[in-house]
């Protein structure tokens, strides 16, 4: 398994938000992660990233326990996180964005995705390489944020609402790229998303949370038949 989350309990000061959350993610598989606002999706992702420390439970990446490591150490091992907005450096050009992240992470070991690879995988970025990220549209910025996450040796990408503010055709295009690239490089992804149909279409796996607990964990086909949609 790429990522294993075992009986995770976490939250903020004096307030537990998620209890006993467990799931597994196979290499190259995409997990759609649903639940209403406050269900604990963001808290789960932030605990995997390391922005929050768990009260109880464990997080394992490629057979290594990572839940006590600081954020940069987890990034070095292949965790990537895309915030729902501001996932790029607005005052840098597309090329500078990629270049600075690539060079600061150049010491990592493992199979590498370089700036040139990202530019060839995401032709939209190639076309705008000299543009300042802050001047680009939401969709282009989201594409760049995804490109930044691909640099180095990503193992598991956590995507927080990547479709926010994007037009429907752009969402399809972005999700298509995510599916294609994740499969090709055996990268796993967790996709927190409000656009349920689009997210389900590219996922192998669905996790639904309610009130801080997992209420459904299974393949998309089974999720469609389940009665958990009443939460939305």
């Amino acid at each position, binding site marked *: 398994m790429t990522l294993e989350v075992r009986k995770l309990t976490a939250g903020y000061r004096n307030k537990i938000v998620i209890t006993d959350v467990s799931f597994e993610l196979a290499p190259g598989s995409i997990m759609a992660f649903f639940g209403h606002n406050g269900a604990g999706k963001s808290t789960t992702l932030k605990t995997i990233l390391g922005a929050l420390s768990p009260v109880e439970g464990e997080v394992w990446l490629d057979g290594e326990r990572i839940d006590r490591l600081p954020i*940069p150490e987890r990034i*070095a091992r292949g965790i990537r996180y895309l915030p729902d907005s*501001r996932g790029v450096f607005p*005052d*840098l050009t597309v090329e*500078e964005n990629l270049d600075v*992240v690539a060079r*600061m992470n150049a010491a990592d070991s493992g199979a590498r995705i370089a700036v040139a690879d990202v530019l060839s995988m995401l032709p939209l970025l190639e076309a705008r390489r000299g543009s300042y990220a*802050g001047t680009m549209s939401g969709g282009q910025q989201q594409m760049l944020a995804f490109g930044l996450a691909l640099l180095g040796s990503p193992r598991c990408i956590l995507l927080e609402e990547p479709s926010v503010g994007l037009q429907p055709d752009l969402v399809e295009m972005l999700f298509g790229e995510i599916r294609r690239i994740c499969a090709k490089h055996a990268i796993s992804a967790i996709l927190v998303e409000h656009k349920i149909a689009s997210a389900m279409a590219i996922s192998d796996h669905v996790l639904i949370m309610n009130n801080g607990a997992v209420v459904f964990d299974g393949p998309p086909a089974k999720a469609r038949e389940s009665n958990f949609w009443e939460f939305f």
Partner: protein
Amino acid sequence: MLFLQLLVDGLVSGCAIGLVAVSFSLYYSTTRVFHVAHAGIYTLGGYLAWYGAMQGIPFAIACALAVAGAAFAGAVIQRFLYDELERREATPLVMLIASLGALAVLQNGVAMLFTPNILQFPNPWRTRMLDLGIASVSYAQVLVAASGLAAFGALMWMSRRTLLGRRIRAVASNPFLAEITRLGPRSVYLAVMAIASAMAALSGIMVGLDQAMQPYTGVLVLLTATIAVIAGGIGSLTGAFVVAVALSVLQNVALILMPGRWSIAATFALFVVFILVKPEGLFRKR
């Protein structure tokens, strides 16, 4: 001609104030800490160089040592004051009061170590004059202008062309992303503080060489510099430098109309009107 002479003098001292403005702006836009103790670093630089010069060390070497010393002092403030406060989740008000404390410590530390009185550099060549035809400038003034422009140019080059420059701009524009992409925001803050302190110290040394030094004048310089930073548009290094030079020219040329002791009041009045009319600054950030 008086007007041209004042214009040239204004341009020259504008380069020094511009250096303070640019370095303050660099630090502020990267860390969002309003570093009033920057005025103390400016003062410290001048006094360290003066001390070196008094020991008979060649001016260039005294200058380099003083700049390094000031950069180190800045790094100490960053590491042991601002970083600590941030770790304790201090509010901006608490940061500001601590910075004010650091300013008082630096200024009065300098006053106690050296002297609270007015000082002049011992180097005799500093007052030698150079005739430019339209106006004449001292050797010291030449150094003020040259060092100001060179340091500004070097900073712009560093910011655009080097990895550190890109890291600084990246951290300034998105600190959270910088953290999760391993750009090392902490070490960037430290580097920015050292660079900004070195620049402020250079300016303090050159102004001290050209005119004279007193431990408490740094605040007035910083006030003019921060006015330039805000009027130039926060985050725009070029804006800060250009407005600082313009303000200095204005202050000097206005000497024809009014005595110099009112120039800070006039500058400040201009600033108050300015922020009411155009709070986003002249040079809009991209």
